[in-house]
């Protein structure tokens, strides 16, 4: 009997190990969900290109399609402006399985708005052999089936999905623009843009696997699902489900369709007119049967990166790294320094338009003038020097009340920045430990900011802009309690206790006054600032660091 138990336990352990092998994660990738046959993760365009250096076909497809061999965060793609189409190059969902490789981009054809989308475009490169890639432009229509219902039931995919036939144009921006602007190339498979009969039809012969998404891992109830405003960051956020359609049981029609320019049958070794040595291109999906010819398709909606905090944190630590190092190098000066940043969004990336050096008020070196920064800027980085003259004048080691309040100025949409999102605003303080950032949670929008922060802000007469109102009692108490505790820590505690004590003080005071902001930290790391961002939170009164 004992032997049987042992055998059973051993079998269970083995099964556990097998499961682990199946659910292998890629270091550094954001794994979405586990699927027995594949893995899901999110990359940016640079990471994507670097991930498949041996896949010459894919490299060629992407480089020719996007007309660029590398995508530096500082470079904004001109194609986006030229064609009025943006493709989010910062949040690309990738699915890898032995017989399926799918790369899904979000395509933006109009300014994005807060809240859940009414329709959404995804560009998908997919392949069953990692050599021949198809490309399709998908349209999700939420006019009949609400986004929320779809997310909770990804099996509804065929009922709201249609596709725009693409052409043989190399430049994907031009290709999309051409396709959507030609009357004869209207969304294929959709009837009055409401019912996608073609996708429903092809499910008849396809074997479809539907995997539900994961819910937000926050403590609140009910749990948020993908696409809903969520304050969590990183892998604690909700993820979308997906559908996998295998067409191997479908009757294979004739080789890839003609009409409008055939690209040749898959396996011919190239796209339209491909001759020896010609660049490999993706096969554009022109009709519904092209999906069948592809062998299989992987469909996972990508609404882009809605973790605005994380996106901006990565922008700051890459785009402004020289400024961060400069500010860090001046911490022994008896003076505060700082910069304000005017940014531009294109293709899901931030680029720098202008950097403004913050002045010190006349005769006062212990502060920088944050008010002089225009409200259409995205945020500020400034130094908190070790010593501002004497112990009695020691600067705030961490955020002061005016630092926290300045965040609200940059959280507003403006005429110059109608696409700015509240959770992209930031105030950063460089001190001897590293760079601290304060940001509004991801769920804060222009619509709810005034209500959510009613105890802290004033609203202009039109009702569309908020600013911190420091005469609100909570600000006055926060200012006093922060200063008192920072002073006590500096005076009474040892150096090795101070960092966490300052963080604890800030987090506790924010919690007690219900000032809902996120605090992040990037370690100085010997002056390189090259580590991972951490989110700071309280757990039983102690600071908890969560790597992002």
């Amino acid at each position, binding site marked *: 009997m004992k032997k049987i138990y042992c055998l059973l336990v051993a079998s269970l352990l083995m099964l556990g190990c097998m499961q682990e092998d199946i659910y292998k994660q890629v270091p550094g990738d954001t794994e979405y969900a586990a699927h027995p046959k594949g893995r899901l993760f999110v990359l940016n365009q640079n990471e994507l290109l670097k991930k498949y250096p041996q896949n010459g076909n894919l490299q060629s497809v992407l480089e020719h399609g996007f007309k660029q061999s590398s995508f530096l965060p500082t470079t904004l793609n001109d194609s986006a402006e030229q064609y009025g189409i943006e493709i989010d190059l910062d949040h690309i969902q990738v699915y890898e399985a032995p017989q399926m490789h799918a790369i899904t981009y979000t395509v933006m054809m109009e300014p994005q708005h807060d809240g859940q989308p009414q329709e959404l475009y995804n560009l998908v490169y997919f392949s069953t052999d990692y050599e021949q890639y198809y490309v399709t432009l998908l349209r999700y229509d939420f006019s009949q089936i609400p986004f929320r219902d779809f997310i909770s039931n990804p099996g509804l995919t065929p009922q709201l999905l249609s596709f725009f036939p693409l052409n043989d144009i190399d430049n994907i921006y031009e290709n999309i623009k051409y396709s959507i602007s030609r009357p004869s190339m209207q969304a294929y498979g959709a009837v009055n843009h409401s019912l996608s009969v073609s996708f429903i039809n092809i499910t008849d012969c396809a074997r479809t696997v539907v995997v539900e998404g994961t819910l937000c891992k926050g403590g609140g109830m009910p749990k948020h699902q993908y696409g809903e405003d969520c304050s969590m960051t990183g892998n604690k956020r909700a993820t979308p489900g997906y559908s996998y359609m295998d067409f191997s049981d479908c009757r294979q029609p004739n080789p890839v369709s003609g009409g409008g320019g055939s690209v040749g049958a898959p396996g011919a070794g190239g796209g339209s007119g491909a001759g020896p040595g010609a660049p490999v291109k993706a096969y554009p999906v022109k009709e519904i049967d092209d999906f069948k010819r592809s062998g299989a398709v992987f469909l996972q909606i990508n609404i882009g990166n809605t973790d605005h905090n994380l996106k901006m944190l990565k922008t700051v630590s890459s785009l402004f790294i020289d400024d961060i190092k400069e500010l860090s190098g001046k911490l022994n000066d008896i003076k*505060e320094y700082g910069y304000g940043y005017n940014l531009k969004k294109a293709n899901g990336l931030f680029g720098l338009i202008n950097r403004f050096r913050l002045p*010190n*008020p*006349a*005769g*006062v070196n*212990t*502060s*920088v*003038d*944050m*008010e*002089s920064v225009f*409200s259409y800027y995205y945020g500020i980085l400034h130094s908190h020097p070790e010593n501002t003259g*004497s*112990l*009695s*004048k020691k600067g705030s080691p961490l955020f*002061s*009340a*005016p630092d926290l*309040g300045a965040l609200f100025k940059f959280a507003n949409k403006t005429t110059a920045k109608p696409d700015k999102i509240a959770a992209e605003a930031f105030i950063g303080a460089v001190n001897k430990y590293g760079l601290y950032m304060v940001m509004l949670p991801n769920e804060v929008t222009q619509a709810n900011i005034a209500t959510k922060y009613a105890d802290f802000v*004033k609203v*202009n*007469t039109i009702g569309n*802009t908020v*600013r*911190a*109102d*420091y*005469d609100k*009692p909570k*600000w*006055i*108490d926060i*200012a*006093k*309690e922060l*200063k*008192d*505790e920072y*002073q*006590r820590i500096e*005076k*009474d505690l040892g150096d090795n206790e101070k960092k966490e004590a300052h963080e604890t*003080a800030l987090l*506790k*005071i924010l919690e*007690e006054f219900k000032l809902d902001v996120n605090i992040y930290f990037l370690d100085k790391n010997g002056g390189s600032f090259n580590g991972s961002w951490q989110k700071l939170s309280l757990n039983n009164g102690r600071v908890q660091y969560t790597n992002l």
Partner: protein
Amino acid sequence: MKTIYIISAFIFVQLLQAQTYTMVDLFNRNQRYGERGYYFHDTQGYFNIYKNATWQHTSANMTIQLRFNVKTFVKHNRFKTDALVGGIRIVKSGTEVLNTLYEVQQLKPSDINYVVYNGHRIPNTPDCFGCIIPDQRIRMYYREPDNDNNAFSFLYFDMHIYYDRQNQPVLRIVFTEEALQGMNPAYVDPDFPAPSKTQLFLPFGTYDFVKMP
């Protein structure tokens, strides 16, 4: 019988609300100021030398009077604290421009409802004139009435008492532009009405006050 139930219920609610606080010294403690369940008490009587007196500064065209009192507040149903609160009277060229001296006799809901209220104590440095006891200065927050200017919301001055050659107590306050914390009082936000208050009644400066008889 019904009355007894009501009275019992009332007493029960009162008992529930009567929170007990652990007393710690306001200026020498291991707890964060504001920590739930503590009473931050001026056990050493640091406030005593300031209270129950009127202090006066006189210059060519300005007279400033300060008066302090000690009050105890329960704040945010979280903690209890002693506070040194103050009123101020400013007369410029014979005209009284501000007078809140009477407020120190009133009990307001919170220390921050007074024009002047205490913060933390500050370590002694060479610029602390006549300082002989540790951390002799105290940071006092200062906010003039009807303020609508963010730059004037978090003002403070540093205060202490030293003794002159005649061994008379002199109250010194040091009020500098650093108290603006980087904010410009003349700043007008284009999205909001300009603040009506652009100047303080109390100019920045260092002032010595004598104790009025």
